[in-house]
Structures are given as structure tokens and as C-alpha cells.
């Protein structure tokens, strides 16, 4: 089958490549670009471990063909830290609030939470839980992930983070 030429921006860098049309974006990122932050979890668009930010949308990269992303601007966990190497508020939040245990879901969680905070910088706990409902975590029970996102929101808004009473 004839290959297609694609060009896209991934974490700020322009990438040109020839891909088979059936190449899924997750395979293109991991195998062709060696960007292995987005994980392959369920492969059935349920778990969200493969989530990347694509033109301002959170998408499951296992359910998008690389050719569909031609011309797109993509961000993965590899593109989250600040230019000076310091952690993004979300990464810091996940570290400070113990928002991960095994870490498998974390790249997808953080990239999804990034878009959630772009759309709503002061989400309620319910907004957060609804917003990350497409990302499964089998370790944490979500409580600390919610706290990590609240921590990041507080930091981005320049207000002190207040942990809610349990």
C-alpha cells in the first residue's frame, strides 16, 4: 500500500515522515519517533494511557491514524516540562500529592489534566473527576490524582493549595 507523507509538530518540533495509512498515531509516536511517554494500555480506546494533546483536544492516540494527524500540533508528556527543565505544575502536583504508584497511567493523566486546566483553570472536584473519566488508574483509587490536579490548579492560579478535609 502506498505510503503517505505526513508533517506534524510534536512537542514543538516539526516532524516529516512517510507512513502507511494504517499506522496508528500511538505506533508512529512510539516506534518511529521514539516518544514512549504515551503508553499502550488497552488498545480499545478505554484506558486513556495513550492520551496526547492534539490541536487543543485530548485524544486517545490508539484510535487515530497518523495520517489523520497530518498538520497537527501534538504534545505528549515529553513536552510538559518547562523550557528550563523545571517540572510543569501538574508534574510537580503528581509528585507532591503522590498522584501515582506504578506510573503507567501517569503520562496520559497529566496530558489529559493539562487540557482540562486549559479549559477550566478552577475546576471543582466533580469537574476533575468528570474530566479524567476517560483515564483509568488501577493503583491509586484516584483520590491523590484529584489532589495532584487541584495542587496544579492552585499553583497555576498563584493561590496556596489547601487540601480538603477527608
Amino acid at each position, binding site marked *: *500500500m*502506498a505510503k*503517505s507523507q505526513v508533517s506534524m509538530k510534536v512537542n514543538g518540533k516539526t516532524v516529516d515522515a512517510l507512513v*502507511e*495509512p*494504517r499506522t*496508528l498515531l500511538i*505506533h508512529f509516536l512510539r516506534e518511529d519517533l521514539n516518544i514512549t511517554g504515551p503508553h499502550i494500555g488497552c*488498545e*480499545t*480506546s*478505554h484506558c*486513556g494511557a495513550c*492520551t496526547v494533546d492534539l490541536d487543543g*483536544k*485530548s*485524544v*486517545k492516540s490508539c*484510535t*487515530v*491514524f497518523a*495520517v*489523520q494527524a497530518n498538520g497537527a500540533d501534538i504534545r505528549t508528556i515529553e513536552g510538559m516540562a518547562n523550557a528550563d527543565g523545571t517540572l510543569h505544575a501538574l508534574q510537580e502536583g503528581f509528585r507532591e500529592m503522590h498522584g501515582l504508584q506504578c506510573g503507567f497511567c501517569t503520562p496520559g493523566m497529566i496530558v*489529559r489534566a493539562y487540557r*482540562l486546566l486549559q479549559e477550566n483553570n478552577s475546576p471543582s472536584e466533580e469537574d476533575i473527576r*468528570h*474530566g*479524567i*473519566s*476517560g483515564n483509568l488508574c488501577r493503583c491509586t483509587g484516584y483520590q491523590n490524582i484529584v489532589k495532584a490536579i487541584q495542587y496544579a490548579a492552585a499553583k497555576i492560579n498563584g493561590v496556596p493549595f489547601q487540601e480538603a478535609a477527608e
Partner: protein
Amino acid sequence: MIPGPFAYHRPQSVTEAVSMLSDLGEDARALAGGHSLIPMMKLRLATPAHLVDLAGVADLKFIRADGADIVIGAMTTQHELIGSDLLTGKLPLLREAALVIADPQVRYAGTLGGNVANGDPGNDMPAVMMCLGATYEIAGKSARRRIPARAFYQGAYLTALEAGEILTAVRIPAPPAGHGFAYEKLKRKIGDYATAAAAVVLSMSGGRVAACSIGLTNVAETPLWAEEAGKILAGSGLDAATVKQAVAAAEAITAPATDARGPAHYRTKMAGVMLTRALARAQARAGA
């Protein structure tokens, strides 16, 4: 999981898209958001030789008022439906239904056109469209036509759409100001299809039901319009006895499959429960 090989096409206009689909024949499929088709391709349950991606067709993505109707382009995503001020104001049922479809990531990609045109009885929007009396705008190589949603669904994955045609827009008559509405969906978890779901739109006048329309999701091979149940409720004050009679009429037209979501008789009863809840919520929201 790697799909079978295919050739990728990206038309720029509806005319180009339908002429491609009709020239390429049965081995070609239109690609909208891809969140039904791509999973099927990964499982090799679908192996199209050609994919015609509609993402480059600009005039399929819009939400606008057109006289007394609201018209929505087929490539409008669920996420865009949820964020639309026009819909929140005039047709809030769509936002409520879109919010219980799949999960956030799927809603960024999944389109209204794909949801209604695919013919999957588990999809939520078809019953909502039957409830609202929507009309689908269809384009083919030689002609354009309109089909009422209530006449579109013929069986599981079987619709009035013919080979080479695409659904370009959904046209919905805006319900009257002050109407009540609700979409009640029972599902096992986020991202699941409905065990059963019910859509209701009703108008009240002097404490009585002036008009009521009901759609049911995933309790038959096709979405259902519960016409008889709506007629029973018209003129009533939604008293318990009349609601019970209408719910029984709605349950009577269901024919769900026994599957992982439960045995058939349970899913029928759940359709009744969802309808009862949707009626109560729609009534509470309706102006007098």
C-alpha cells in the same frame, strides 16, 4: 492491534467526497471521528480498502439557527455540542445527552453525524433525534435528499443511507421556549453503552401536557420512538396512573437482547425506569 491496509483519501468538499465514495464502491468507507470505525478495523471486523476522511470538508462543521430549525453539520463533535451556547439555550437536551456519551477524549473526536449515521443501536443520539423529530440531510453523487430520523433506522447497523451517500447535516425543529427535557441513561460505567436510556421532550400548558415525545436507546435492534406512550401522556397532568400506563406502552415496544448488560426483561424494565425518571425531570424543568 493493527488494522488491515487501506488507501487514504482526504476530499475537500461534499461533492468530491460523495463522488469518491460512489466511484470506489463498496470497499470504501467514510471516516468521521473514527471512534466506532477504527476500533472495528483494529479487530479486523471492518476491512475497508479505502477510507474517505471527511475531516477536510470544511462545510460539515457548524451549528446554526435556520428559521425555526437548528441545523448541525455532521462533523460537529460531541465536545462542540456540549460547548455550544446556541444549543445550551435552545436545545439543551443535546448537551445533556452528549455529556453521557463515552468519555472526554472520545467526545473530542466523536461526531454527531457518525453517531447517528452508523446505525449502532447502542449510540445515544439516534433516539434523541427520533424524540426531537429531526431530519437527516443526505448527499449522494447525483442528488441530495432528506430523511426523517424516525424513518432512518431499519436494523442494527442498517439504515436508509445508500452506498455512496453521506449524511451531511441534522436538522432539528427547535422545541418551544419553556419546554421540559431529559435524557436518562443507565450504564454500568463511564464509557459504556446504555443498559437502557430514555429521551423526553414535553411542553406543559395550564398544568397539562400539551405535547410529549419519547425516544428509547439500546433496547431493540434500532432506536425507538415511543409514539403511543407520548400520546397517552398528552392532555394528562402526568399523574401517577397515566405515567404508569405510558411507561407500560413504552416497555411494550422494546425488544432488547440478553447480553452482558443484563437479561432482556431487566433491560425492558430499566427502559421503563429511565422513562419514569426522565418524565419527572422534564416536568420539573418545563414552564407552566
